[in-house]
């Protein structure tokens, strides 16, 4: 149920709107300064990074307050600051910032979570000698992410998008000495690149179609009615309207960045980076960017749909989201690495968000994104402190019984796990429930809901398995673990609190979040909880979650099996276990198809290059050499011949002539007499007539 949000036309830009562009600028500048610092100046680097992000957080909070106050006065606030970036002939390329409920929420989430992660990483990275470089990249990443959030133009968004991609590459490959890290960084970069290509295509199509890339421009923007109407008119292919086609292309980009099914392979390998990186990028922000993009472009994809109806584009998004959710959850069940399990869980949760967007609209998807950001960040940092504690040991089968050694971590990690599974009153339950409820109303088909429910079951199962392995049983590692320092645990506690409390903002009874995004007033009515459909959905989800936890505890419980012992499930169902273990061979599949094709095509290109072009060039060279040969022959024989020969003749002729002047008087006399004779003869001969 999406409703057209009516925004009052923008009168003037408020102060905070003007300052909006500062929010991304400050972290970027900070990263520039940190880049200039010398390696050992870790303290200053850390303070700079944290300071700049806290400043941005402050600004975001002001903006959020401004929007809320506006919203509370009954008119939805959307303020746009546009300026011309390039003026080329008749066309000029405009960029701009936008402040509306969607961006305000994202700003606050990104800054808050980012800040906590920065504080966490000061403790985590303190032993690493490249600490300054780390903070430089991290603040650059934060700046880029904020840029994406406030962008009012698809182009500015795309720039931030690319910058985020770059920083993710740098951060994943932070320990570039490790070949696996370097390979992972490259893999991440390339796969997101594939998605970005489609994104670019969509952008270009949008620009040519609507003439502008700005989202909102006092009626002229691409997301506003006028442009949408024109796009609807153009008919693309397979029954898709132009708007739908552009939306799908942009979704392909989002899929790449958010790790949806075909392009999800890079996210598990991205765990090679340091844990704060994984937390920041692969849990809270970057992956969320894809979902945010779809939310920002939602009017485009939803254009042409009757009230309550849906478009083919949204249908595709929903199916992809649902399938990814189940797919990732299945693989997560069979993983041993603590961070890899969390990675796959992120992929499946993103699937959930995409499905939510597809079926429930912007508010449903965004609410799950916000809540997921908090508890996933918590889980990752918890995993980080576990690894830190176990002296960089990542395999869950080698841990166990940590609830005694690391009690604070255990408590916060447990809260995160419960929120993720969707246990009632925790954040995860409300946001997942909203998605399921939206799914149940989905008119197209009930398939996605079924998949999502099965996904919820699997989520609950693999999370309890992981907790069981890590915290219960007894210590299987070789060195005793120790609790992390305060600077790491405080953020965990804060996030844990949020994981518990945040859900309440979006309950059916008091849908503050949804109405805030919708720009409507939020009546408080407990009766909404008791609606038959809502009750049904929440009941099913609670049942499924409990089933999952009991099943997992039954299998793994406090057993703490030997590290070398095969997993319980492995004994039970060895064949599927092996498949899941190997990530359903998706990588290999790609290796065989795309990479093979690519290698083959490279060989062809090489052959083409060497034989054909090379041949052509060498042919030309040969031709030239031949021509030079001809030229030389020509030169020596013809030119020299004639010219030199001519000169020789001339000089010999000259010689001959000079010989006449030989100083002998009698010779002259002889010539004279001869001349006389000749002249006389001529005279006589001519006058004889």
């Amino acid at each position, binding site marked *: 149920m999406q409703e057209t949000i009516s925004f009052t036309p923008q009168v003037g830009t408020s102060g905070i709107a003007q300052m909006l562009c500062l929010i991304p600028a400050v972290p970027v500048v900070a990263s520039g300064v940190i880049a200039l610092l010398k390696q050992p100046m870790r303290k200053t680097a850390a303070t700079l990074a944290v300071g700049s992000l806290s400043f941005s957080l402050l600004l975001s909070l002001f903006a959020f307050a401004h929007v809320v106050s506006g919203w509370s006065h009954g008119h939805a606030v959307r303020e746009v600051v546009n300026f011309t970036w390039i003026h080329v002939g008749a066309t000029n390329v405009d960029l701009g910032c936008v402040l509306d409920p969607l961006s305000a929420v994202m700003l606050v989430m990104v800054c808050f979570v980012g800040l906590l992660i920065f504080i966490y990483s000061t403790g985590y990275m303190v032993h690493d000698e490249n600490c300054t470089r780390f903070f430089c990249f991290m603040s650059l990443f934060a700046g880029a992410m904020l840029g994406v959030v406030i962008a009012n133009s698809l182009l500015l968004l795309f720039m931030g998008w690319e910058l985020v991609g770059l920083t993710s590459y740098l951060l994943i490959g932070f320990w570039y000495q490790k070949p696996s890290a370097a390979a992972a960084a490259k893999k991440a970069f390339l796969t997101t690149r594939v998605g970005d290509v489609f994104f670019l295509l969509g952008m270009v199509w949008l620009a040519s179609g609507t003439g502008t890339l700005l989202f909102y421009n006092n009626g002229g923007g691409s997301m506003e009615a006028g442009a949408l109407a024109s796009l609807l008119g153009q008919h693309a292919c397979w029954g898709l309207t132009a708007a739908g086609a552009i939306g799908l292309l942009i979704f392909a980009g989002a899929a790449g960045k958010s790790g949806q099914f075909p392009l999800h392979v890079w996210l598990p390998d991205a765990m090679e980076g340091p844990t704060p990186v994984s937390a920041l990028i692969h849990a809270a922000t970057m992956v969320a960017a894809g979902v945010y993009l779809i939310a920002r472009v939602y009017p485009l994809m939803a254009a042409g749909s009757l009230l309550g109806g849906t478009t083919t584009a949204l249908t595709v998004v929903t199916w992809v989201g649902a399938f990814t959710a189940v797919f990732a959850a299945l693989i997560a069940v069979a993983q041993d690495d603590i961070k890899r399990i969390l990675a796959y869980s992120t992929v499946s949760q993103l699937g959930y968000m995409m499905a939510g967007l597809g079926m429930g609209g912007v508010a449903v998807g965004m609410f799950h994104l916000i809540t997921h950001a908090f508890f996933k960040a918590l889980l990752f940092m918890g995993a980080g402190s576990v690894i830190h504690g176990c002296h960089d040991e990542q395999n869950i089968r080698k841990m166990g019984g940590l609830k005694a050694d690391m009690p604070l971590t255990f408590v916060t990690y447990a809260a995160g796990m419960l929120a993720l599974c969707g246990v009632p009153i925790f954040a995860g339950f409300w946001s997942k429930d909203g998605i399921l409820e939206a799914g149940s109303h989905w008119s197209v088909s009930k398939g996605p809901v079924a998949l999502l429910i099965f996904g919820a079951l699997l989520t609950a199962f693999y999370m309890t398995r992981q907790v069981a392995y890590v915290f219960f049983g007894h210590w299987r590692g070789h060195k005793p673990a120790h609790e992390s320092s305060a600077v790491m645990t405080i953020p965990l506690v804060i996030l844990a609190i949020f994981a518990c409390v945040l859900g309440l903002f979006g309950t059916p009874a008091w849908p503050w979040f949804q109405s805030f995004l919708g720009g409507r007033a939020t009546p408080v009515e407990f009766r909404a909880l008791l609606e038959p459909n809502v009750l049904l959905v929440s009941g099913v989800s609670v049942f499924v979650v409990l089933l999952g936890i009991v099943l997992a505890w039954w299998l793994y419980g406090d057993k703490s099996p030997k590290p070398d012992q095969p997993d319980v499930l492995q004994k039970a169902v060895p064949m599927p276990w092996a498949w899941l273990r190997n990530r359903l061979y998706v990588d290999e599949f790609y290796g065989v198809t795309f990479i093979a094709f690519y290698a083959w095509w490279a060989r062809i290109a090489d052959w083409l290059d060497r034989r054909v072009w090379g041949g052509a060039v060498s042919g030309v060279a040969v031709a030239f050499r031949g021509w030079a040969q001809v030229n030389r022959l020509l030169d020596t024989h013809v030119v020299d011949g004639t010219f030199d020969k001519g000169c020789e003749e001339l000089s010999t002729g000259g010689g001959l002539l000079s010989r006449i002047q030989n100083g*002998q008087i*009698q*010779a002259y006399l*002889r010539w004279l*007499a*001869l001349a*006389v*004779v000749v002249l*006389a*003869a001529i005279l*006589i001969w001519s006058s004889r007539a």
Partner: protein
Amino acid sequence: MTIVFYLIAAITVAGALAAMLLKNTVHCALALTVAFAGLAIQFLELDAQFAGFAQILVYIGAVAILIVFAILLTRGSETPKDGVFSKSWLAGLVIAALVFAVLGWAVLNSTSVLPGETAKPAVSVLQIGNALIGRYVLPLEIVAVLLTSALIGAVIVARQEKGSAK
């Protein structure tokens, strides 16, 4: 044609040939004087007395002596060791023959044009004097100047440089 003409012509030609062919230069000079004398007589034959006597006076009297003097001054009188004739004498001869052929041919073939026998012109020295002073006064003056300059020129050219006891 009178016998005298043939006789004198023969003598003149013989003299000229001797002048050109004799080995001893002084003999050549003397043969030359014979030729001059022959010519003078031819002039007399042609009733040009003044020219004849002038020829004798100028050529035999002065030029011959001059030539002989020159021969003695340049030690020409000794017979030269290597050949009297220059290297390419044949060419000279051929060309001379050619010239003679052309002239002879012209003379013989122009019988129609040339005037035949004419009366003996009675010319007196007085007439010549008048002609010289009258019609030919300009050439006379010019020749006078010429002779003076030639006189001075020859002296300067042939004069011994002062002080060089060559």
